[in-house]
């Protein structure tokens, strides 16, 4: 297990209280907390390095440009892309996927083509494809799932055909934590020459990513889920594909030249970065990447497995608690989606909130998955490098409090179906 108590000290917010209790932060799947170094990098930028990037004819500007581009190089190394030009900065994973949908799918897909996703995807890896489907007459197909909500890899050929032009899947499910075997999907994508997109919002922050080894065509991720600032996303794309795509948004920075009635787009990566980006955010993101690299993503993943090995058996012992997600902890990240009999997830959230415990309640932007399981939503506790055994213990105490407040042990007189 990582020395998480020491790591915790790097995160100022984890020293604070919520509702008069020490903050137990179990919502990193939604957004991670930030170490002091990242916060410093962000404010230092505005304090003494702030200037717009590109073409500024003064030191502050070209140094800001260098810092901005340094992050690009660090992202390239972090996910082992071939070259920095394959790294596009966006606002978040959602924008990265929309960029593919608009610049690639809207232009290259035609009526009758198919896009393969799954019912476990986050809305941000579903709705952009639905928009393409509506506009282009493209069909959306779904990878069959196993009973414990893994992709059923053996059955993928059933939903695959020559018409499949894009396969887009998550690296890890945000709702129930399943880690998917991207190489198996990649194998199928290559067979039919489909574009392989990975929604890496929950991937790069918890799992080692090597885009060349995965052999994906696109990998989308968000800085704020990996200790970085909000408002910074990444789209990795293979150069040859990015080059044949049209620009996503028009404006400053994305052009090579503009004349009275036309323009010529800039080369990669500027072609996809119109307008002034989140410079301070991108600069601070580099520090987050360094922090993760120092600890080691593989170590973080192992740490989360150990937390789960401690938490899952304990939670299973509590009567009234129902857990979702695979029990194979090697195929699962640090996510615990659960329900307590007869208690709505929002009520669980409110009781835990009063105990200083931050969890998320609802459909987790995965309505199709919730509908498939047959529930309106779950309560979700998610863990990261700064969480440890005592956070699990606090969660369990909180759950016991829920059971007490809702008097589950005394009365079981629900007269109508839920």
């Amino acid at each position: 297990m990582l020395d998480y108590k020491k790591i915790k000290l790097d995160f100022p917010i984890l020293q604070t209280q919520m509702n008069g209790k020490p903050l137990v932060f179990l919502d990193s799947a939604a957004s991670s907390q930030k170490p002091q170094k990242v916060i410093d990098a962000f404010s230092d930028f505005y304090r003494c390095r702030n200037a717009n990037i590109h073409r500024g004819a003064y030191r502050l500007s070209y140094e800001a440009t260098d810092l901005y581009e340094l992050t690009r190089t660090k992202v390239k190394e972090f996910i082992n892309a071939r070259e920095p030009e394959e790294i596009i900065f966006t606002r978040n994973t959602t924008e990265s996927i929309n960029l593919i949908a608009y610049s690639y799918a809207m232009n290259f897909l035609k009526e009758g083509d198919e896009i393969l996703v799954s019912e476990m995807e986050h809305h941000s890896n579903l709705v952009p494809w639905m928009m393409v489907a509506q506009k282009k007459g493209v069909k959306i197909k779904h990878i069959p799932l196993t009973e414990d909500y893994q992709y059923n890899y053996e059955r993928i050929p059933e939903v695959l055909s020559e018409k499949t032009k894009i396969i887009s899947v998550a690296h890890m499910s945000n709702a129930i934590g399943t880690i998917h075997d991207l190489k198996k999907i990649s194998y199928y994508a290559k067979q039919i020459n489909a574009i392989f997109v990975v929604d890496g919002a929950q991937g790069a922050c918890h799992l080692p990513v090597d885009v060349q080894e995965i052999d994906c065509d696109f990998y989308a991720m968000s800085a704020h889920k990996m200790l970085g600032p909000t408002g910074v996303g990444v789209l990795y794309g293979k150069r040859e594909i990015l080059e044949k795509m049209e620009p996503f948004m028009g404006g400053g920075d994305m052009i090579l030249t503009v004349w009275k009635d036309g323009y010529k787009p800039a080369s990669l990566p500027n072609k996809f970065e119109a307008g002034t980006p989140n410079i301070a955010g991108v600069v601070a993101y580099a520090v987050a990447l360094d922090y993760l690299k120092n600890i080691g993503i593989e170590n973080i993943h192992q740490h989360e497995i150990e937390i789960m090995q401690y938490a899952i058996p304990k939670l299973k012992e509590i009567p009234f608690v129902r857990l979702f997600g695979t029990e194979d902890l090697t195929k699962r990240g640090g996510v615990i989606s659960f329900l307590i009999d007869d208690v709505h997830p929002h009520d669980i959230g409110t009781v835990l909130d009063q105990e200083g415990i931050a969890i998320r309640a609802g459909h987790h932007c995965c309505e199709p998955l919730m509908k498939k399981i047959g529930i309106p939503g779950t309560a979700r506790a998610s863990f990261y490098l700064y969480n440890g055994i005592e956070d699990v213990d606090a969660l369990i105490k909180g759950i016991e409090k829920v059971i007490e407040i809702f008097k589950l042990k005394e009365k079981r007189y629900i007269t109508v179906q839920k």
Partner: protein
Amino acid sequence: MSLNEDLYKEIIIEYSQNRKHYGELPEANIHEEGVNRSCGDEIHLHLLLENSTIKKARYTGQGCSICMASTEMMSSFIENQDIKQTKSLIEQFKAMIMSRDDISMPSPYEDLESLKGVKKFPIRVKCATLAWNTLEQALKEYEKKV
């Protein structure tokens, strides 16, 4: 602040777990749906109105205990009430929940006062008011019809 005293009072837990008016109403002539987009609470009201009187009220859907208790209480109180009385009750309930002043509910509606605690939990106010807003909309639809 105590959860048991302020939000999850015994009476709320009881109403939310003992839903006598939960279910479909085949003879209903007004159906109205209310959704809290941010949390997913969803109430379908089924009302039978005759000569401006609510003869029967049922509901389906799902939501948290506050939402369910509020809907259950509301359904039990509006049966056999005329539209005018009901509108006034909606107004009084909303005033109690929204107002900074401490407003009480007249007899026989005192049980509704148990929901007053949501004032201390601002994000839960919409859970308590969902059914009432849905009812208000349902009555508007009915009045448009007749």
